[in-house]
């Protein structure tokens, strides 16, 4: 088996890697590019812990092949903050104690950011349904939903 050479963009930075055909985008991000923010909770697209954005589209990195990253733009949790300035969602997750163990947090943040880019003024039900693909076992989602709604409100005010 010969490796595939892939050139891509990761959080705005040019990136390239070699991978095997069978490797998922999640494998590549974690094992080849050192970006371990995306987590593998299931490997079958059921838990959302590996949520990333590819060319503007929210995807489970475990359901996409690494080789498919060629020529695309990938955004992960590592790219959310600007320097030492946290994204409002990141700040609100901390303010609202919207995480306990924190394993689902990167996926939830990436998914929530993707929601707010489409719908800057979601209601509670919209947030709940958009995030229904991101499992959290610790919080019961209450504080997560509040954090997202609060971040949305702050972002609307700022814009």
């Amino acid at each position, binding site marked *: 088996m010969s490796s595939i050479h892939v050139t891509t963009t990761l959080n705005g930075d040019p990136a390239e890697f070699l991978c095997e055909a*069978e490797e998922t985008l999640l494998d590549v991000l974690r094992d080849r590019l050192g970006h371990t*923010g995306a*987590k593998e*909770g299931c490997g079958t697209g059921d838990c959302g812990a590996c949520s990333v954005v590819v060319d503007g589209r929210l995807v489970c990195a475990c359901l996409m092949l690494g080789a498919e990253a060629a020529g695309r733009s990938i955004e992960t949790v590592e790219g959310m903050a600007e320097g030492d300035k946290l994204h409002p969602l990141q700040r609100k997750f901390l303010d609202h*104690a919207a*995480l306990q163990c924190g*394993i689902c947090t*990167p996926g939830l943040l990436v998914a929530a950011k993707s929601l707010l880019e489409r719908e800057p003024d979601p209601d509670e039900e919209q947030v*709940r349904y958009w995030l229904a693909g991101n499992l959290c*076992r610790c919080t019961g989602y209450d504080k997560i939903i509040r954090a997202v709604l609060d971040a949305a409100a702050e972002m609307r005010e700022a814009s």
Partner: protein
Amino acid sequence: MALDSKQDDRTHQFKVVGTRPPRPDGIDKVTGRARFGADMTAPGMLTGRILRSPHPHARITSIDSSEAEALPGVHAVVTRADFAHAVADAATADVLDNCMAGDKALYDGHAVAAVAASSPAIARKALKLIKVDYEPLPHVTDVDAAMQPDAPALHEGRANETVPAGLSPNVVARCAFGHGDIEAGLAQADRIVERTYRTEATHQGYIEPHACLASVGPDGQADLWCCTQGHYMVRNTCAEILGMDQGQLRVTASEIGGGFGGKTTVFLEPVALMLSKKAGRPVKMVMSRSEVLRASGPTASSSVDVRIGMTKEGRITAGFAELRYQGGAYPGSPVDMGAMAAFAPYDLENVKTVGWDVVTNRPKAAAYRAPGAPMAAFAVESAIDELAKGFGLDPLEVRLKNAAREGTRASYGPTYPAIGLEATLRTARDHPHWSAPLGPNQGRGVACGFWFNFGGDTCVTLNITPDGTVTVTEGNPDIGGSRASMSMMAAEELGIPYDKVRTVIADTGTLGQNEVTDGSRVTFAVGLATIEAARAAKREMCRRAAQIWGIEEEAVVWEDGAARPAGPNAGTHPPMSLAEIAAIASNTGGPIAGHHEVNAEGAGVSFATHMVDTEVDPETGAVKILRYTVFQDAGKAVHPDYVEGQFQGGAAQGIGWALNEEYIYGADGVLQNPGFLDYRIPVASDLPMIEPVILEIPNPGHPYGVRGVGETSIVPPLAAIANAVSEAAGVRLTHLPLSPPKVLDALKSK
């Protein structure tokens, strides 16, 4: 030092405790920097993988790994034959047998061999080259079926002395608790409810699969990084299994992506160490989700007979429960704790519980949040609800009438000190939720729950740095914000700002023995040790100030973050702050630290009352949770955000258990739903907001009154939801989960 009395009683005005500061691990967790189990790497690392039995019960007649060993890139193959060290302790021997099968595979997914290879692809290929000859045996996965005399037997001779002769060898232990005379009590009742209640096995469902990285050197020194609720437990268990000195194995806990009890034992770690030892290279192992569900430690399924008698005024005259729990392929189901917890909320003259621990061809149960108690509470609280409603009585008033209070002799033995059950019931009764109107097909349920809470071995070291900031070093993995709580308690005690304290979780080489993060013990026990370590540091700082001032130690007190003369007789020395004392510590005797080592006692039991509104769809049998309120005694909420989070998270897990989650085994004994698609835990769109109501009845066993809060919150939901659904459906439901087909069948049978 004369201890400032204001610092030592539970009524003093807290400055830090009770506030909601940011957690110290927060930034790392929202930026992706936090390193969890699978995020660890080491130079030269190999990938370890496990070959698992496809049979629920089979004799392993031979294993031929020669082809796998010959595959280029394979560095080690391990089977049970490699674990030659004799393990003396029976429970640890079971852990080893669960990590790597011996003569028999005892459940679908049981590990039979493992490989370490230079890439995941080679490791996977190598597993396929290992030839295992199985002789399939009859199997049993249901608890009641496993107790039948002619049931397939997993083991012989494992029943302990509590089990009467003549039962199936699958019945391995019996326990009994209670006092009074059940039959006499029942004779006084106006009505008796007698029913059997069943629950299915559920999984903790932590989102992070088990993962570890082991590195064993030829000199016998080893390092292990893993996601665990207790790295000291990992060290001790692995050392015993591998025949190593505990001191030669250093275990470091990564950040942990959920545990809920499921990470209080080992699955991969001994295997990774053995692979690393054989390969001479670091070995990393990560479970897939399917492996987590098939071969980690779900909780027991249960079958419980209840008989409760009640007068028409609502007084319980007698309560009896016989509980049968299967804990998978080895002894150790949590039936004993279920039998103790079943009637714990009530003040009863006549109460008895009997528990049976049964083995089946399922994965070995691990702890799951208040292990054993939710199923017992489901049975008892359902029966109490049925009795109360049958008499037309208010189910909260009935519970209040029978509620345990200070001085009550608990059904499991002890007499309660100050407890908060009545406070949760009264607060529930007065809450607007209780009187809110309900619509058609809707029902409201309530239930109470109890958990013991634990203490145990705990070590804390508190170091004063030269610049006057503080590091708290503790040994319990932080699973839900406990580092914040420790920093808060240290800041409170020292009288310094929260942001001047940082709490870190040490590896096993740094502190003495620490119990695992379980039993809702950490905020209580590690908090207690943190406070005592801070007090030790304060005593030392007062001694240094006394030395500088040339006065007696007893003439110095610590107040508001500074050493001060105790009174006019001590002189007029200006106060010396912690930072000022720290800055010249080198000149007054050297670095300053406080430490405390304790087997913490006085954890203080915890009670909750839950209230839930449900709506049943008469067409489909689907149940929707409309409203949910948790009332729980926290003793003292150190960081209320994370106390609320425990209340909400426990309720959500209970909702999943009550409505949807179950291990489904077919006639072939193979788990049919080993993935999050079919083992469906609650998602955001399934749930409403969950209102947490914190009550604070101080625990007399903790300097600040703290009680554990993590586990009690999963005890009432099963019953509260079943009571609500039964009301909405107009028929009593006794078998969880209340999945749509079951509810629809019940509606049709009306």
